[in-house]
C-alpha cells in the first residue's frame, strides 16, 4: 500500500461526518419498510437476469436503441472512448454556440471529467443536483454515488453558498436548500443546453428513463433548447417492461423510497415553449464496457443499477467514505468499475480496503458478487505483480504445517515476558500499534493437538472428525476440549486427524488461489480417515472452506482429482453450534434442568452469517443451553478482524472494533460469543484493553457443563 493511502485513511478516520450521518439514518430499518410486501430475492433475480442478458448483447442493443431513437427524431452517437464522447459534446456546443450548460446528476459525465473539459472552451457547466452543485463549489468529487456531498457539514456548505451567492448565511439546512433553489433557478432559464445522464436506456422504444427527487432533470430537459444525455452502455435493457423491476428496486434500495419524486421516460424530441423543436442527442458511451462484458467474471458487474446500497452497508466505506474507498465511482462496486473504466492499476490500492464481509453482496439489487470480484482484482494483481515478499513468505509458512506449528510453539515461549492472564497487552516499540486498542492473545502453552490424546473418551457408535483450525488449536485449546466433552455426551466420539493444517482461507483472501488449492488438497483425505459421520468445525471461516471454498477453488484451479472427496467433506461438515442445535432437536443432547439463566449477546461472524448462512442455529442452541440472548445493534456487522486485514489496515480495523465494542457494551449482557476464533481474538482483546466486565467466550466453553 502506498504511503499516500495510509495518510488519506488516517485523515478520513479523523473526519466522521459521513459515518455519523449514515448511522443516524438507520438505513437497514428504513429500507426494510420500503420493501414491505416485495419479494426482494425474486425482484433482484429478475434484474440480474435482464441486465445479465443485456450485458451479453451490448453492441446489438446499442444498435437497436440507435435505430429506434433515431426513428423518433433523437440523434444517437455511440462513443467508444471518453475522448469521442467529449469531442462530440464539445463540437455540438461549438456548432450551436452553446456558452452555458445546466446539468442534472450524471456519474457518466463525472467519469469523463466533462465539466473540466468544457471549461477550456469557455463553456460554463453548472451542476443543478444539490449534492453535485455542492461538490462543484467545493471543487471535490462525489463521496457517495447517490448522495454526493454527505461528507460535508451544513456549516461547510453554508460557507460555500455564502461565497457563491455573496451574502451572509447561517447553517439552517431548510434555508440553505432555498438559497440553492434561488441561485440555480436562474441558471435553468439562461442555459443553452441541458445535460443529463440516464438510469435506464430502453432499446425497444429508444427511450431513456431519468429519476430524480429534486425535479432538476425535468427542468434540465425542458427549459434549454438542446438536451444531451450521456449514457453508459450498461444502462441498456431490451424492452419497455424491463424498466419496471429496476424502478421497483432502485429507489427502495438507494434511499428507502417507494419511488423517486420524479421518474421521466423521454422517447422523442418535444416542442419547446416557443414552438421550436427541441434537439435531443443521446451519447451512448462504451469506455471499456464491451471489453468488460467479454470477461467471464466481470461481465456480472455490468448488472449494477447504481443504487449505492453496497456503500450504505459497507463497514469500511462508512468509516473512510468514497474519497478513500473509490475514485469517481465509490465503495465496493466503485472499486470494480474503477479497475475497468480507468485501469486495473488504479484499483490496486483501493481493492485492499475490502474486508470481504459480504454485507454488500446480500443487499445488491442486481445480485453482483462484489467481494468476489474485488478478490478477482486482487488475484489478477497478485498473478501479474506477485505478492509483497514478506506476505508471500508468511503464506508459504502457514502452508507448511511443520514449520508453522514449530514457529507457534516457539512463540509460546518467546512471548512469555509480555503475557499476563492470557493476553499480550503491550508490545515493544515498532509492534506497539498492534496492541494499542486491543490486547493480543497469547499462544497457549500447549496446543489442542497435544492435549487431545490425553482426553479420555467413551466408546461411541458415531464419530466426528474435528477440524480445529489454527487459531483454536494454538490460541483457544480449551474450546476444543469443551467440544469433545459435549459431543461425547451426545454419543459421538471425536477424532482428531493429526495431519490437518491451515484451511487456505488466508491464501484465498489474498488472491493466491494456487496456495489455497494446496491447502485444500492437504486436508481433504485426512479428514475422511476413519469414515466419520460428521466433520465438525468450530471456526466459521474454516467452515466456509470445508463447506464451499475447497470445491470451488479446486474447480477453478483445474485440480479436480479430489473434488468427489471434497464434496464428501462438505456434506458431512457442520459448524459446531449448528451440530449442537441438531443434536438438541434430535434429543441426543438434553439441557440440564433448573440452570441459572445468564445473558449473552451473539456476534455473527461474516463467514457464519453470509458465507454459510448459519445464524439461527447458534442462537437456538445457546438459548436451549440456558442463555438469554440480548441482541446487539448491528450484530452481523464485521468486527474488523478479517484475518490479515487487521495487520494490513490496522487503523480501519480498530475503528470497526470500537463500534462493535460500543454495540456489545450497550446490551449489558454478561457474555459475548462468536463462533470464530478470529472475531473472538479481536473482541476479547478489545474488551480487555477497555477494561470491560463483559467476557468474550467461545460457544463451546459456554455450553460445556449445560447438558446432561
Amino acid at each position, binding site marked *: 500500500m502506498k504511503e499516500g493511502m495510509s495518510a488519506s485513511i488516517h485523515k478520513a478516520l479523523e473526519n466522521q*461526518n459521513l459515518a455519523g450521518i449514515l448511522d443516524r439514518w438507520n438505513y437497514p430499518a428504513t429500507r426494510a419498510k420500503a420493501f414491505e410486501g416485495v419479494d426482494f430475492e425474486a425482484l433482484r433475480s429478475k434484474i440480474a437476469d435482464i441486465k445479465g442478458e443485456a450485458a451479453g448483447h451490448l453492441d446489438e442493443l446499442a444498435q437497436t436503441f440507435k435505430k429506434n431513437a433515431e426513428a423518433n427524431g433523437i440523434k444517437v452517437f455511440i462513443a467508444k472512448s471518453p475522448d469521442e464522447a467529449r469531442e462530440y459534446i464539445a463540437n455540438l456546443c461549438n456548432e450551436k454556440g452553446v456558452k452555458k450548460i445546466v446539468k442534472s446528476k450524471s456519474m457518466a459525465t463525472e467519469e469523463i471529467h466533462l465539466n473540466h473539459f468544457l471549461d477550456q472552451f469557455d463553456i460554463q457547466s453548472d451542476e443543478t443536483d444539490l449534492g453535485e452543485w455542492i461538490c462543484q463549489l467545493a471543487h471535490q468529487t462525489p463521496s457517495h454515488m447517490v448522495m454526493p456531498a454527505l461528507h460535508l457539514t451544513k456549516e461547510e456548505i453554508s460557507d460555500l453558498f455564502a461565497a457563491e451567492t455573496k451574502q451572509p448565511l447561517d447553517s439552517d439546512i431548510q434555508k440553505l436548500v432555498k438559497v440553492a433553489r434561488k441561485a440555480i433557478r436562474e441558471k435553468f432559464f439562461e442555459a443553452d443546453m441541458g445535460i443529463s445522464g440516464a438510469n435506464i436506456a430502453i432499446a425497444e422504444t429508444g427511450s431513456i428513463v431519468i429519476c430524480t427527487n429534486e425535479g432538476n432533470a425535468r427542468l434540465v430537459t425542458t427549459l434549454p433548447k438542446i438536451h444531451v444525455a450521456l449514457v453508459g452502455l450498461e444502462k441498456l435493457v431490451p424492452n419497455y417492461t424491463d424498466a419496471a423491476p429496476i424502478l421497483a428496486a432502485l429507489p427502495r434500495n438507494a434511499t428507502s423510497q417507494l419511488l423517486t419524486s420524479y*421518474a421521466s*421516460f423521454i422517447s422523442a424530441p418535444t416542442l419547446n415553449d416557443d414552438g421550436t423543436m427541441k434537439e435531443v442527442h443521446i451519447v451512448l458511451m462504451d469506455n471499456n464496457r464491451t471489453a468488460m462484458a467479454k470477461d467471464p467474471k466481470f461481465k456480472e458487474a455490468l448488472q449494477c443499477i447504481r443504487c449505492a446500497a453496497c456503500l450504505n452497508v459497507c463497514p469500511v466505506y462508512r468509516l473512510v467514505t468514497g474519497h478513500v474507498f473509490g475514485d469517481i465511482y465509490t465503495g465496493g462496486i466503485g472499486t470494480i468499475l474503477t479497475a475497468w473504466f480507468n485501469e486495473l492499476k488504479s484499483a490496486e490500492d483501493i481493492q485492499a480496503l475490502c474486508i470481504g464481509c459480504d454485507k454488500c453482496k446480500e443487499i445488491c439489487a442486481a445480485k453482483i458478487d462484489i467481494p468476489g470480484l474485488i478478490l478477482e482484482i486482487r488475484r489478477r494483481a497478485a498473478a501479474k505483480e506477485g505478492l509483497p515478499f514478506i506476505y508471500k513468505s508468511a503464506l508459504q509458512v502457514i502452508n507448511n504445517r511443520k514449520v508453522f506449528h514449530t514457529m507457534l510453539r516457539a512463540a509460546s515461549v518467546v512471548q512469555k515476558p509480555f503475557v499476563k492472564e492470557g493476553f499480550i497487552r503491550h508490545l515493544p516499540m515498532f509492534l506497539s500499534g498492534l496492541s494499542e486498542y486491543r490486547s493480543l492473545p497469547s499462544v497457549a502453552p500447549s496446543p489442542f493437538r497435544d492435549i487431545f490424546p490425553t482426553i479420555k473418551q467413551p466408546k461411541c457408535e458415531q464419530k466426528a472428525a474435528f477440524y480445529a483450525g489454527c487459531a483454536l488449536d494454538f490460541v483457544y485449546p480449551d474450546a476444543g476440549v469443551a467440544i469433545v466433552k459435549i459431543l461425547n455426551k451426545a454419543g459421538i466420539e471425536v477424532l482428531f486427524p493429526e495431519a490437518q493444517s491451515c484451511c487456505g482461507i488466508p491464501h484465498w483472501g489474498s488472491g493466491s488461489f494456487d496456495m489455497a488449492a494446496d491447502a485444500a488438497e492437504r486436508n481433504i483425505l485426512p479428514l475422511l480417515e476413519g469414515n466419520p459421520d460428521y466433520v465438525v468445525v468450530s471456526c466459521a471461516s474454516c467452515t466456509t472452506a470445508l463447506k464451499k471454498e475447497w470445491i470451488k477453488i479446486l474447480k477453478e484451479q483445474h485440480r479436480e482429482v479430489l473434488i468427489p472427496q471434497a464434496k464428501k467433506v462438505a456434506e458431512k461438515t457442520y459448524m459446531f453450534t449448528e451440530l449442537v442445535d441438531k443434536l438438541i432437536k434430535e434429543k441426543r443432547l438434553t439441557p440440564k434442568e433448573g440452570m441459572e439463566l445468564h445473558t449473552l449477546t451473539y456476534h455473527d461472524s461474516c463467514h457464519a452469517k453470509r458465507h454459510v448462512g448459519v445464524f439461527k442455529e447458534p442462537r437456538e442452541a445457546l438459548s436451549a443451553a440456558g442463555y438469554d440472548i440480548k441482541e446487539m445493534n448491528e450484530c452481523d456487522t464485521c468486527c474488523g478482524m478479517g484475518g490479515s486485514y487487521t495487520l494490513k489496515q490496522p487503523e480501519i480495523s480498530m475503528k470497526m472494533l470500537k463500534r462493535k465494542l460500543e454495540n456489545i457494551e450497550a446490551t449489558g449482557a454478561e457474555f459475548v460469543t462468536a463462533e470464530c476464533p478470529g472475531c473472538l481474538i479481536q473482541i476479547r482483546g478489545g474488551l480487555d484493553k477497555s477494561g470491560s466486565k463483559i467476557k468474550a467466550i467461545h460457544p463451546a466453553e459456554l455450553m460445556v457443563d449445560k447438558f446432561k
Partner: protein
Amino acid sequence: MFESFKAKAEASGNTEVKRFATTSEALGFIEAFMAQEGVKDEAGSYAVWAQSPILEAFDNEAMAQKFPGLHFDVTRELAKGAKVGITQLKWGLAETGSMAQDSTDVTQRLASALAWIHVAILPTSKIIADIPALMSKMHPKEDKYITLITGASKTADIERVLAIGVHGPERLVIVCVDDLALEGVAS
C-alpha cells in the same frame, strides 16, 4: 385502490389527497384554494392552469376574471412566477402513491415543475395498481415524454436531512374527482 393510493401518496412528503364526488365540488375547492393561497396578478403569485380535459367543464373566462392572476396560457415566464400550477394527470398508482403525466406538451411540465404548489387533478377511476399496470396503458410510442410524480420535490443531500421543495413544488395537492372518468382520457 383509492385508500392505498391516498395512504402512499400522503406518506411521500408534503402531499395531501382530497376526494370529491363531482367536478363542481372539486372546482369549488380549487377556487377556495387559490383564494387562500393569495393568487393575484403579480410575479410570484400567479396560478397557471395547463390544458386539461377538466377545463371543458366550466367557464374559464369567468374564473379568470375572479382571479386576475390565473392564466390558462402557460408560458415559461408565467410558470416561473407561479405560486400555484394546476394540471390534470392521466393515471394514479396505488402501490406507490404516484401519478403518471403525459408530459409531451411542454406546458404540462412548466405548470407542474416550476410552481411552488402543484395542484394535480386525477379522475378517481384512473387509479390502477402499479408501474407494470401503467405500462399497458401508456407507451412511449404514443407518449413521447412520460413523467411519474410521487410527492413533492425533495432532497436529503445536506447531512441526509429531508428538505422539501428544491427545484420543483414544495407542496403537492392531489384532487381526486369521482365523476371525471370521461373526457379526453381513453381507458
